[in-house]
């Protein structure tokens, strides 16, 4: 029962933080570029505004156009509950392979919406998005492999627990290599610079925006909120892997600290992300495989080294 409550708490916290996270990233970027920015609450206001508008849909889309955005946001929300973010106690075991495949599912929803639109941009976005997704997958799973070797389990709660007990795991070469690979994968999966420019609407460069370009009203809200939730959850996961302290061991009063620690880590990493993005330009689409190949090699080395060198 307490696991269910922590799950619900985690979902609510993430729902509150996710748009705020995007707001922080945008505001920090704006300030660094000498602009005022729209304020950290602007993503919230955008979502509220869109939620009130009637969506316009293509007639031939059928049930899919109703269902896909809702299913997409629900899978992202499920991802938030699945990961040990506030507490290491999760409703169902946070198996990393399950996490990765739930992520795949939440990535498919916008692609199908893009294709259902029946125009060029939606297909273009879906095509690019899925190509990158396919290339990210080896990095993700190899990073999972590397993370799971020291504990002998792919359960994230166990991995976090091991990291709290033995902080040396975090700064070991294996841990750093796996983390570097994971960060590149998260950036690609979350459609951030240098893989995708989240603020572009230029047809040559956009990926995520192209898929959602035909959506409006609440459909757009669900797609946007889904991707925000996913990115925030992944960033929070990275935060917890780097600094596993503060994550509650179970239910109870530790949860309050868990929530505060989660918010602090996530928003801090949001600031780091913004600073990094100011100094980066989007790379050409066909250079992305080079970046991802590099991350695959990092993850592969992490696995190979941890198998060769005794821990």
């Amino acid at each position, binding site marked *: 029962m307490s696991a269910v409550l922590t799950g619900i708490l985690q979902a609510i916290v993430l729902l509150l933080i996710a748009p705020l996270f995007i707001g922080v990233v945008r505001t920090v970027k704006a300030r660094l570029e000498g602009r005022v920015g729209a304020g950290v609450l602007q993503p919230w206001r955008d979502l509220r505004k869109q939620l009130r508008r009637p969506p316009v849909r293509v007639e031939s889309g059928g049930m899919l156009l109703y269902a896909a955005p809702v299913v997409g946001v629900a899978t992202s929300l499920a991802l938030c509950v699945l990961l040990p973010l506030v507490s290491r106690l999760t409703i169902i075991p946070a198996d990393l392979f399950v996490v990765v495949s739930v992520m795949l599912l939440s990535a498919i929803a916008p692609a199908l919406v893009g294709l259902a639109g029946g125009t060029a941009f939606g297909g273009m976005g879906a095509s690019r998005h899925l190509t990158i997704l396919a290339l990210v997958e080896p990095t993700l799973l190899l990073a999972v492999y590397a993370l799971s070797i020291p504990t002998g389990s792919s359960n994230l709660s166990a991995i976090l627990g091991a990291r709290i007990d033995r902080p*040396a795991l975090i700064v070991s*070469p294996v841990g*750093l290599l796996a983390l570097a690979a994971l960060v590149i994968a998260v950036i690609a999966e979350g459609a951030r610079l240098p893989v995708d420019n989240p603020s572009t609407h230029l047809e040559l460069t956009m990926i995520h925006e192209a898929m959602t370009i035909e959506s409006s009203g609440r459909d757009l809200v669900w797609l946007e909120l889904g991707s925000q939730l996913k990115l925030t959850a992944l960033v929070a996961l990275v935060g917890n892997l780097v600094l596993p302290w503060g994550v509650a061991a179970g239910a109870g009063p530790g949860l309050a600290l868990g929530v505060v620690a989660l918010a602090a880590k996530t928003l801090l990493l949001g600031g780091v992300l913004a600073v990094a993005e100011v100094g980066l330009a989007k790379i050409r689409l066909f250079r992305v495989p*080079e970046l991802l190949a590099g991350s695959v090699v*990092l993850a592969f080395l992490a696995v*190979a080294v941890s198998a060769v*060198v005794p821990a």
Partner: protein
Amino acid sequence: MNVILDLCAGALLVTALLTVWRRSQRGVVRVIAVQGVALAGLVAVVAARTGDANDLLVVALVLLLKGIVLPWLLDRRLASLGALSGVGAPALDDDAPLLNPTATVVFAAVLSIGAYAVVTPLLGDTGDPAVRLTPLGVAVVLIGLLAMSTRGRAISQLVGFLVLDNGIAAVAFFSSGGVPLLVEFASSFDLLLVVVILQVFTVRLKAAFGDTDVRRLKELHD
């Protein structure tokens, strides 16, 4: 202590990989500076174990030469090459490798594993954590050779040469627990000489062909 040793060794390998992965020549030069620092850190750890005062001099020498002077020289050369051509630097900055970076970096990973497979049995079962890392040094040597043989432009080839040299130094430190000061001094001086000569050579290359792509040298044959 072992953690720092491992981290420096890891940094050595990752920076070596980065030199074959990145296209930008400037980026590669920055990477080689980081590698120099990592090598110095490595020597410092080994020195701290032996407690030999001479080794501290070696640390200082490595840090100064490989971490600062050589990268600075290369960077300055790149800047002057950019100024020479007068065109926007970014396009010129990218190397034109013979093999695409994706394939090269995968190949480099294979080489690293191969180095482990070949060298580990030769070492026997010593408890020394530094000796255990010898295969990594060999891997860096191999990656340096790979960089030299696949890179198109003179500066990035030079970087490959530096990676090779760092790898040799690392192998020496790992396997013998230190290098006599004189030997290190002599080899560093050699290195400096090579870099200076090659710098002159790149300027000539640029003047003769308007480019630093060493494949142009084939034209001299005709």
